[in-house]
């Protein structure tokens, strides 16, 4: 029997670099293990003493346990689950922040995470200065940010406030600016972590419309949310993570139903 293995076919996919290939994100038996000292050891002295005595007791836990999934271009993929179920770890793996302990993550295309409030913004800088800083964090060149600048300001509806330090902004204004910058680049893969919960109803609609437009142009969107109506209305497929294990994957309605019946 000489059947091609899964990793062979991935290799082929990677080598061909075919832009029309359907897959955007592929997780293959991904496991992430955190090792936490059972007690906190914060000093060299303590660490050295315990290391010599071989007394460092590590508690290990698997934030992700053999998770395999494919996310295709042109779909919004929702991930639901309780706090601590491994959702954020999953996003970190995709955003190439965290290299998995075991397994393999393959991501095709430019990834833009929506940065949470605070991360990537400096309160003392103006909205305008922060756009350039945030753009650079997302990997734009100066030219690219400059080209998108008007569109970003326009979409954020900040108007004159763009020249004020953002410590004076409201939470909603922060969120609008963050969303506008992250989505300005038309990323191939957009990572959305809960951020749509902020902002007023009108802006939320506008964000959803933009995400939908991305999807139709062939982007993949990975969305984590506690808000079931959002998952229901926006996602084509969804998955339920529980204690790092993928419980069910499929149509959003089925996943939500399973999560409601057994998860909560």
């Amino acid at each position: 029997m000489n059947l091609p293995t899964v990793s062979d076919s991935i290799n082929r996919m990677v080598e061909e670099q075919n832009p029309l290939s359907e897959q955007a994100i592929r997780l293959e038996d991904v496991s992430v293990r955190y090792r936490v000292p059972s007690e906190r050891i914060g000093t060299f002295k303590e660490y050295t003493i315990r290391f010599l005595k071989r007394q460092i007791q590590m508690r290990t836990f698997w934030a992700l346990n053999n998770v395999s999934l494919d996310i295709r271009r042109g779909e919004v993929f929702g991930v639901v689950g309780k706090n601590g179920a491994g959702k954020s770890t999953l996003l970190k793996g995709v955003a190439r922040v965290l290299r998995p302990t075991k397994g393999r993550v393959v991501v095709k295309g430019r990834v833009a995470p929506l940065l949470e409030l605070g991360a990537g913004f400096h309160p003392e800088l103006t909205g305008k200065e922060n756009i350039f800083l945030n753009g650079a964090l997302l990997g734009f060149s100066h030219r690219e940010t400059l080209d998108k600048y008007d569109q970003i300001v326009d979409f954020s509806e900040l108007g004159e406030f763009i020249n004020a330090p953002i410590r004076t902004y409201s939470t909603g204004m922060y969120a609008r600016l963050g969303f506008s910058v992250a989505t300005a680049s038309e990323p191939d893969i957009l990572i959305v972590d809960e951020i749509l919960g902020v902002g007023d109803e009108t802006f939320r609609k506008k964000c959803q419309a933009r995400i939908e437009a991305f999807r139709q142009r062939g982007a993949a969107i990975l969305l984590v949310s506690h808000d079931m109506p959002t998952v229901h209305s926006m996602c084509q497929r969804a998955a339920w993570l529980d204690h790092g294990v993928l419980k069910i994957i499929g149509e959003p309605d089925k996943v939500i139903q399973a999560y409601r019946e057994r998860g909560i």
Partner: protein
Amino acid sequence: MQTIPIYDSAKKVPHALQELQEAVSHKHLIFQLVRRDILTRYKRSFLGVAWTMLNPLGIMLVLSFVFSNFFGSTTRAYPAYILTGLMAWNFFAQSTTAAMSSLVWGGGLLQRIYIPRASFGISAIGSGLINLLLAFVPLVLVMAVVGAPIRITVLFLPVSLLLLACFTLGLGLAISTMAIYFPDVAEMYQIILMAWMYLTPIIYPEANLPAKYQLILHLNPLYYLVKLWRLPLYNGVWPTWGDIWPAALIAIGMLLVGWFFFTSKSDEFAYRV
């Protein structure tokens, strides 16, 4: 057609090399981080960036007032001696501290978005360089006033600065890595810095040190780098090969050690911060 970047977590590329490539391709980000540091540092103060120049000037005034009784008579243009030493020292001390704290406090960012982890350290050095260059404005004035004008040998200074920057980056990366595992390092480092400053001829001249301490001096890597900095700037002489090679060896060695240590651990940072 734009090529689509592909990330494959299973592909093992030598970390040290990969980090270097990534840092080069993120040079615009590093520029923006430096810009952020400079812009925000004095944003709320009235005199703004002028503090970058006033700060060493003020410290120099205090130190030369306090110590001129001890060293003033034996040292030519003592205020210029202090100020040149302080510039090098401040650059080293502030940049390494900034490299460490920006990585430890910037951890939130490292958790959410991929950026080369060395960006923080490199941009800390960049900000330090800008501050150092600004400090030249008061230096030129002070040197003219105390009668130790800048000479043509100042043309050698870029080499001294490059070597000092290499050493600073290497050490900054090494201690940031340690600070991620042991947060106490950040506090400890401030004490070490203080001791280190007194072990380096910054405010006292080398000749004033008793003979029994000369060995310690020669074991101190910063001694060679500060000397290479002062020779063309303060003494107004061209450094000899004997001055250059130990400094170059130390600087490049530290950079390599720091870079390899940092990059060998940097994949684990997201698990730790």
